[in-house]
């Protein structure tokens, strides 16, 4: 295990974070599952559960297929007030790296804030937390093996529909 990656790899890592944010803010939800490997997982968990070692998440999507099921729900089945969202994601912090300087696996974290804007309302901080990620190298570039979003905003302003 080391903590050094070459600049090219770090650049790819930055791109992954910013592309993800753009995709989930674009309302083009179909793009979201593609950031994950096939057995990749997405979990959105309140900080209180994480810190108490309680396993419950707000969403626990255990595969890319399940992430696709979520996209279907968001697009087709869940009645909700439409809103815009905007992710502000901090610079990722590399925790550890496996493999060479071009990395097979990267463990990294980044703070995020999501601002929600409803059509007739002001822009408000909707969800604030950090990502704990495991990122792997694939023939199609870096992908998420797992993304755990731990949020401080435990009291959710009614509902969360779109991906964080």
């Amino acid at each position, binding site marked *: 295990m080391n903590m050094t990656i070459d600049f090219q790899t770090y650049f790819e890592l930055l791109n992954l974070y910013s592309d993800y944010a753009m995709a989930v803010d674009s309302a083009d939800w179909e793009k979201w599952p593609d950031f994950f490997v096939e057995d990749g997982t997405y979990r959105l968990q309140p900080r209180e*559960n994480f810190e108490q070692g309680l396993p419950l998440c*707000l969403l626990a999507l255990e595969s890319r297929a399940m992430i696709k099921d979520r996209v279907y729900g968001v697009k087709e089945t*869940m009645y909700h007030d439409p809103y815009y969202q905007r992710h502000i994601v901090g610079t990722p912090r590399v925790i550890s790296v496996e493999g060479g300087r071009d990395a097979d696996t990267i463990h990294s974290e980044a703070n995020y804030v999501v601002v929600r804007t409803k059509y007739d309302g002001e822009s408000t901080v909707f969800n604030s937390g950090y990502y704990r990620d495991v990122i792997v190298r694939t023939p199609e570039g870096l992908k998420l093996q797992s993304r755990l979003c731990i949020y401080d905003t*435990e009291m959710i302003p*009614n509902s969360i529909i779109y991906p964080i």
Partner: protein
Amino acid sequence: MTGNATVFPKDPTWEGEGSSRIPFWAYTRDDLYQQELERFFYSGHWCYVGLEAEIPNPGDFRRTVIGERSVIMVRDTNGAINVVENVCAHRGMRFCRERHGNRKDFFCPYHQWNYSLEGDLQGVPFRRGVKQEGKINGGMPPEFKLEEHGLTKLKVATRGGVVFASFDHDVEPLEEFLGPTILQYFDRVFNGRKLKVLGYRRQRIPGNWKLMQENIKDPYHPGLLHTWFSTFGLWRADNKSQLRMDEHFRHAAMISTRGQGGKNDEVVSGVDSFKDQMKVNDPRLLDIVPEPWWNGPTAVMTTVFPSVILQQQVNSVSTRHIQPNGHGSFDFVWTHFGFDDDSEEMTQRRLIQANLFGPAGFVSADDGEVIEWSQEGFEQKPAHRTVVEMGGYDIGDSEHMVTETLIRGMYAYWRKVMGQ
């Protein structure tokens, strides 16, 4: 009612005897809301506070709420559960700021009055004054008695691992409060097995608290609003089902047994939300394994008035705590749990099925949304009223879902207690 009637009536009265047309002002008036707190949350009723499994050890406590009053549920050194109000007997501070923890006693940081886990005042700093140059300065008056200044203690009842409390020490026993019918559905889930807390979810819903009780007394909506349910065949209007109430019509249980799927033109024609033959990409979302304690029904949703909803939806079980804050908002706190003897596989199954529920859930997020939109409609013209007449005007148990009888029942009770 015509469009140009008075929008903000001065002295609104509920027209007629029934409860099938609920005035919008029942959801918008602050004076009524305060009366509801007094009459439902602070007297005559048992309110949910938590699960015994949340405080397994002596000294464990968890801060929670009844109505708008902050309370602490704590296990004392004898293993008994106490519930005390989180307001210091000295100058009224809400002294407990942590959400949970373990303590030998409680103390208020302002002047460090100190309380036992039973809520008794144990010590007051400088009670006998402070000695200075041979003189005693200050101190409490000699007639001040610690025994007279404890925390407000609530009456506590536990059953099957669930903790209820009441500010009203004359409240009837919990079993009578629930009544034999609802008790039976309560005991079906909480049959004495040890519970295992899986975690919490919290949401603030900008709507009147009664709307959440109504939502779970409304079997008319799930197959319609929750397109996800109908898409994947989890809820259909022709599911075998029963609706049951206590004798006061305040509590209810919606009991249903999932059908065998397949298309039935009568129940899906005209249902915009129905999509035939859909399958989830990851079958684990609907990997339902019947459990022996279900005794048949695949879902039982129990509303215990006024404070809690008990959820069993296939393998997902939770309590949903209603914590009102103002006439137009409440916090909704979900505690998901399993049972001590669950296999690892069953725990995973409960956790994955939890994706259906909660503030982001496939079939729950939309409940929060429609409650918000209902409140908006009520605020806009309080003089108007709803039409709760699916299945007629009367109130009674039912063998089908095509009725709003449980909501009529709740408002018959509400009118009686509120004198409206």
